[in-house]
C-alpha cells in the first residue's frame, strides 16, 4: 500500500519588512491606479466625478477625481497641491532657529510634532544633545499632542460618517470640548493655543510653570473618563459598525510599499512604532505598549486610535511626576539664532507623529571660511499624510462612493503637511 506523503503545512505567518504577518492578512488584490479606462468594460457607463477640493470630508483641500461605474469606483486620481506653500523653499532662506515657527503650520493639528521632528535633525547635525529635563518635557508635550490629535480625529470622522450616528455633530462637539482642555494646557506652557514655537535647537524655549503638572493630571483624568463616553456612543453603535466593519481594508504589504506607518499600518497588523523600536527624546524611560490590530478596516483604525489615546495618557502619567531638574536648553538662548551653524553634512531623523513616521532630511550647506552656513541647503520634510494619500488609488477602486468618504476620513490625512 503506497503511502502518500502528508503535505507540508502552509506557513501561518510570512515575514515582510521585518514583521511577522499572518498570511491571511496579505491580500494581493489591489486596485490598479494606472487603469486605462479605454480598455475598461465597453458596455459600462463610466462617469467622472469630482470630489473636492472644497468639500468638508476631504479634510482640507484635497481633490480626488473618481471614475464611477454606477455607484462603484473603478479608478481614483488624487490631485494635491492646493495648499502648497513652498515651506521647503522657505526653509532654505531662513536661519536654522527661525525654521521652527514655519514648520508649525505643516501638520496644523499637531504642531508640537513638527517642531520636534525638525529640531531633532538640526541637533543631529550640530551634534548637541538636549538636557534630560528638555527630553522629558518634549515627550510629555508630544503625548499630550497625540491625545489632542486623536480626539480631533474621532470628532471629524463622525462628521464624515454624518447621518449614520445622529448627524455626527454631537460626537464632534464632545471631542472638541475635551481637545480644548489640552490646548489650555499648552497655552499655560507656551502662551499660544496653536503654533507654539516651543521647541528650539537644543531644547525648549519655555520652562514648565508652577502647578502645571497638577493641571495636566487633572485634565488627563477628566479626558480618560470622557473616552469611555465615546465608547458608549460609538463602539457598539450598530449603525457605526455597519458603516465601518470590513470597509476600506488595507493590506499591510501595500501599506509598507507606500511608506504608510502609524495607526493605518498598526490597524493592518504591522507591529511597528518608532517610540518603541527607535526611541528618541525620553521614550527610553517608559515602556510603550504598542497597540496592534489585525483587521485592517476602518473599525480597527477607530479602536486602535482610542487605545493609543489611552496609552498616551498612561505615558504622560508615568513621566509627569518625575521630571528631572536642570536646564531646558543645551545652547544659550540669547545667542541662539546665530549659534546654530552646523558643519556641512546630511542628516535624517524621524519621530512617530499621530499619523506615522514624520521625518526630516536636511542638507547643511557650506558657509564662509570653511564653516557651516546659517541656513539649510535643502530641507525635505517627509510627511506621513502624503504617503497615506498615495494609498487611495489602490484601495478606493471597488468601493462605494459613500464608503470612499469614510475611508478618506479614516486615513486621517492633513493637507497642510501633505502639500507643504
Amino acid at each position, binding site marked *: 500500500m503506497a503511502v502518500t506523503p502528508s503535505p507540508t503545512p502552509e506557513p501561518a505567518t510570512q515575514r515582510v519588512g521585518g514583521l511577522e504577518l499572518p498570511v491571511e492578512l496579505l491580500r494581493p488584490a489591489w486596485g490598479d491606479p494606472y487603469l486605462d479606462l479605454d480598455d475598461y468594460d465597453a458596455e459600462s457607463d463610466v462617469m467622472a466625478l469630482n470630489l473636492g477640493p472644497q468639500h468638508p470630508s476631504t479634510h482640507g483641500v484635497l481633490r480626488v477625481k473618481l471614475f464611477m461605474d454606477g455607484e462603484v469606483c473603478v479608478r481614483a486620481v488624487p490631485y494635491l497641491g492646493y495648499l502648497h506653500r513652498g515651506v521647503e523653499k522657505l526653509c*532654505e532662506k531662513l536661519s536654522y532657529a527661525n525654521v521652527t515657527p514655519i514648520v508649525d503650520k505643516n501638520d496644523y493639528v499637531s504642531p508640537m510634532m513638527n517642531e520636534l521632528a525638525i529640531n531633532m535633525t538640526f541637533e543631529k547635525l550640530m551634534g548637541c544633545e538636549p538636557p534630560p529635563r528638555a527630553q522629558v518635557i518634549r515627550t510629555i508635550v508630544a503625548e499630550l499632542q497625540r491625545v489632542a490629535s486623536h480626539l480631533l480625529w474621532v470628532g471629524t470622522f463622525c462628521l464624515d460618517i454624518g447621518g449614520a450616528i445622529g448627524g455626527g455633530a454631537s460626537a464632534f462637539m464632545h471631542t472638541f470640548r475635551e481637545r480644548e482642555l489640552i490646548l489650555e494646557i499648552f497655552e499655560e506652557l507656551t502662551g499660544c493655543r496653536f503654533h507654539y514655537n516651543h521647541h528650539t535647537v537644543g531644547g525648549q524655549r519655555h520652562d514648565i510653570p508652577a502647578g502645571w503638572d497638577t493641571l495636566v493630571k487633572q485634565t488627563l483624568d477628566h479626558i480618560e473618563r470622557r473616552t469611555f463616553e465615546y465608547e458608549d456612543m460609538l463602539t457598539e453603535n450598530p449603525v457605526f459598525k455597519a458603516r465601518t466593519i470590513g470597509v476600506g481594508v488595507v493590506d499591510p504589504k501595500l501599506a509598507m*510599499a507606500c511608506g504608510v506607518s502609524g495607526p493605518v499600518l498598526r490597524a493592518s497588523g*504591522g507591529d511597528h512604532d518608532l517610540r518603541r523600536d527607535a526611541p528618541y527624546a525620553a521614550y527610553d524611560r517608559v515602556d510603550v505598549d504598542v497597540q496592534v490590530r489585525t483587521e485592517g478596516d476602518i473599525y480597527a483604525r477607530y479602536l486602535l486610535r482610542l487605545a493609543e489615546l489611552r496609552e498616551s495618557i498612561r505615558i504622560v502619567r508615568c513621566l509627569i511626576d518625575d521630571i528631572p531638574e536642570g536646564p531646558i536648553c543645551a545652547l544659550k538662548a540669547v545667542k541662539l539664532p546665530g549659534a546654530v551653524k552646523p558643519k556641512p553634512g*546630511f542628516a*535624517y531623523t524621524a519621530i512617530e507623529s499621530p499619523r506615522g513616521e514624520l521625518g526630516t532630511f536636511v542638507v547643511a550647506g557650506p558657509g564662509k571660511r570653511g564653516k557651516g552656513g546659517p541656513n539649510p541647503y*535643502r530641507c525635505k520634510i*517627509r510627511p506621513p499624510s502624503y504617503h497615506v494619500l498615495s494609498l487611495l488609488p489602490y484601495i478606493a477602486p471597488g468601493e462605494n462612493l459613500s464608503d470612499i468618504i469614510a475611508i478618506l476620513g479614516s486615513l486621517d490625512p492633513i493637507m497642510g503637511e501633505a502639500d507643504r
Partner: protein
Amino acid sequence: MIVDHPDTAAWVAERFGWQTADPELGPQVPADQLVALATALRDELDFAYVVYCVAVHYPAEDEIQPKFKEGEEPPPVIPAKPDRCLVTYRVRRLGPGTTTFGFHLWVPTGETCPSLVDVWAGMDWQEREQYDLVGVVFDGHPDLRRIMMSEDWPGHPLRRDYAIDTRHHPWR
C-alpha cells in the same frame, strides 16, 4: 530568501563592491545598477518600507584655484563641476530594532534617473514630487506629472537657480 544582515552597508560592499563614505547618504550607485540594488534590498534584505526619495540640486561650479602665497607650490586646482542633482533614497525595515538604509546617485542635468516605482509602489508620488520641485526626470515612471505645482508652472521651484521672489501671476 530573506537574510538577517545587521550591517547593510557591509552587505552591499560585499555583494556589489560599493563603499559607503557617509553613513547618512549610503553608497553611491551607478544608474544602471539602481533597480538591481533596490530589488535585492526589498527581496533579500526585507526592506519593504519606503521612507523618502530626495533630489538636491547643485548648480555648475567653475574651476577653483585655491589661494597660495608667492614662492609656494600652488595647491591642486579644484576641477569644474557640471549642473547636477544628488538623488538620495532611504528605505526601512520595520519592527523591533528597525533600521534604515540610504543610497544615492548623481544625475547630471539632461540625463535621466531610473524609476523605482516597480520595486516600491510608494516611490510613485515621491518621484513625482522630486520631478515637480527639482526637475529630475525619472525614466520608466508610468505617470510622471507635476503633483504640487500647476501643470503649466514655469521652472522647478526647489532648484537653487530659482529665486524665491520669482514673480508669477497672482491667480495661480
